């Protein structure tokens, strides 16, 4: 359309002859969007890393059989005391098995549900590590290492050896790093463990793991589920914990309640187990978004300001354009296209600057005890951030350009011409 060509040509001339102002406005957008992209990529990357740290290795629902007192004491069952006020002292926990009753059918039932990504058994037990004459107390957990890796990123925390090594070795054990250091053990060595009953078993060390939490790394070790069952002299149905991972974490709470009701077991969902962690995530997200929005709004005001000034300077031009046959709408289009050109150019430059800064951060070394697999700062390159960034650049320049350009549209040329 010829009209648009003329309008864009005028807009271009205005922008190029006022290059310094144009550059200032464009840089305003560029820095706003660039800072937004950098910040949001970096912050969500950090958030995601922290989420992964806690959430990926914790089950969405942890099912176990808890030792606790009966909710109904015998006195409650006795009709004669129905309407009396009963006080029972020194209630003791009910005698129940540590294992989950009927664990295999429950596992099958859970694994067949559509919203369950996987449910896997564990066997937790207390043991002693024997180093010469010294016995160190600790935990041994029987797991299926392949499934643990698939569902809970178990492999990320193994610093030597692989889950497969453990899976293939019937007498293998994966020691916590702190524990291994304390006992001066290395991969391939043998370690003797003793059950609470006093049975001693030699196991071969196939690897070390580091969870990042020293208290765990100093006492915890893993072996195959079957190995632990054998050590304890229990049958293959003996399982103390079931860990469930869902497709959608938000269903965890409801499902845990349902499991508790259905099987009479204790089921804890991830949000209840990590309540303060969730709060932290929410607050970090809020900070990220409020800072980003502030940056974008500041950029928007910059554009508004500069367009406003531009329109004051161009009053004569507006009058002359209107007198020679440009309609108010044409004039508005001239200034709107200037705003949008600033938005597009500034926005794209901002995306590029944001991308390169985020890349830079992504390559900065970041080594921490807690996260053996993390070598550089975590950055989340989500394409959505870039789409949001450029969209906001366009929207904010549109809004910032709209008000001044509407004034230009309504400006009465007679007043300007006669005002001289």
């Amino acid at each position, binding site marked *: 359309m010829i009209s648009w060509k*003329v309008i864009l040509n005028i807009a271009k001339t205005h922008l190029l002859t006022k290059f310094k102002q144009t550059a200032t406005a464009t840089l305003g957008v560029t820095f706003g969007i660039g800072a937004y992209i950098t910040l949001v990529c970096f912050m969500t990357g950090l958030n995601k890393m922290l989420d992964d740290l806690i959430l990926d290795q914790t089950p969405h629902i942890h099912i176990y059989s808890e030792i606790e007192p009966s909710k109904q004491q015998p006195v409650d069952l006795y009709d004669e005391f129905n309407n009396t006020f009963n006080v029972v002292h020194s209630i003791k926990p009910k005698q129940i098995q540590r294992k989950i009753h009927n664990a295999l059918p429950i596992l099958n039932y859970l694994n067949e549900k559509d919203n369950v990504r996987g449910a896997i058994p564990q066997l937790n037990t207390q043991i002693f590590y024997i180093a010469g004459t010294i016995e160190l107390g600790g935990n041994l957990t029987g797991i299926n290492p392949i499934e643990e890796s698939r569902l809970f990123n178990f492999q990320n925390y193994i610093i030597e050896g692989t889950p497969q090594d453990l899976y293939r070795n019937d007498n293998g054990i994966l020691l916590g790093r702190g524990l291994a250091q304390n006992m001066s053990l290395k991969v391939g060595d043998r370690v003797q463990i003793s059950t609470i009953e006093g049975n001693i078993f030699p196991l071969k060390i196939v690897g070390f793991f580091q969870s990042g939490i020293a208290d765990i790394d100093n006492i915890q070790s893993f072996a195959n589920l079957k190995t632990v069952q054998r050590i304890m002299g229990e049958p293959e149905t003996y399982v103390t914990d079931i860990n469930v991972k869902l497709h959608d974490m938000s269903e965890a709470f409801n499902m845990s309640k349902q499991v508790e009701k259905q099987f009479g077991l204790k089921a804890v969902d991830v949000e209840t187990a990590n309540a303060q962690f969730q709060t932290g995530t929410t607050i970090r997200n809020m900070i990220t978004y409020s800072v980003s929005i502030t940056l974008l709004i500041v950029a928007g005001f910059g554009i508004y300001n500069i367009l406003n000034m531009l329109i004051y300077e161009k009053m004569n031009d507006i009058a002359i354009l209107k007198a020679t046959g440009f309609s108010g709408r*044409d004039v508005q289009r001239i200034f709107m296209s200037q705003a949008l050109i600033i938005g597009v150019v500034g926005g794209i430059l901002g995306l590029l600057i944001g991308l390169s800064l985020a890349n830079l951060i992504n390559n900065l070394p970041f080594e921490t005890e807690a996260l053996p697999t993390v070598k550089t700062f975590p950055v989340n390159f989500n394409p959505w951030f870039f789409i949001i960034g450029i969209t906001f650049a366009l929207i904010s320049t549109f809004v910032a350009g709209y008000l001044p350009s509407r004034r230009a549209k309504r400006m009465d040329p007679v007043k300007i011409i006669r005002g001289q």
Partner: protein
Amino acid sequence: MKTVLEAKHIDKYFKKPVLFHVLKDITFGIDQGEFVSVMGKSGCGKSTLLYILSTMDTDYEGELYLNEALVTGQPDDKLSYIRNKHIGFVFQFHYLLSEFTVLENVMLPAKKLGEKTFEEIEHDAMNKLKILEIDKLARKRASRISGGEKQRVAIARALINSPSIIMGDEPTGNLDSYNSDNVFNIFKQLCMEEGLTLLVVTHDMDFAERTDRIINMSDGRILQ
């Protein structure tokens, strides 16, 4: 003779700061090829009248006809089109777009009209500049030329769409006598040779006396 511009019973009030009756029952017509000047003291309403006739000011009572078609009450877009196609403007303060070249300034109204290709428009614009003997300035920035030259550029721009009428608001008011003579001669020549219709508001008695007809205004009325 065809009437190019006709005003019928035009009244105009200024509402601020106090209600003031600026134009009182203005009725007159301009025929094709006429060179008309409007004279009167400052504040008699002659500029106000010109801006109503130019369609830029729409806040008045009465009727305005251009080429025997009613202009009063048309929507803004339509008025812009009329200004673009039928009316050429020359102001006292030459009003060029200072960041554009002389040639671009002249071409702009034609580009807006969009009836010709850019090459044709450029050719036309160069022709107009040649007629006004400023074709050497074509590539210069409008802010870099002298006042008299600017006024001639403004006339070239007014001519580019071959308008029905050219209106001038004190087109020589800001020029020395040499340049104002020059501008008058250009107007006269256009009127004689190309049959252009001209309506010029002026203070300059010498200028007015040399036109075909003088409309004298006083206190918002045309003196007969």
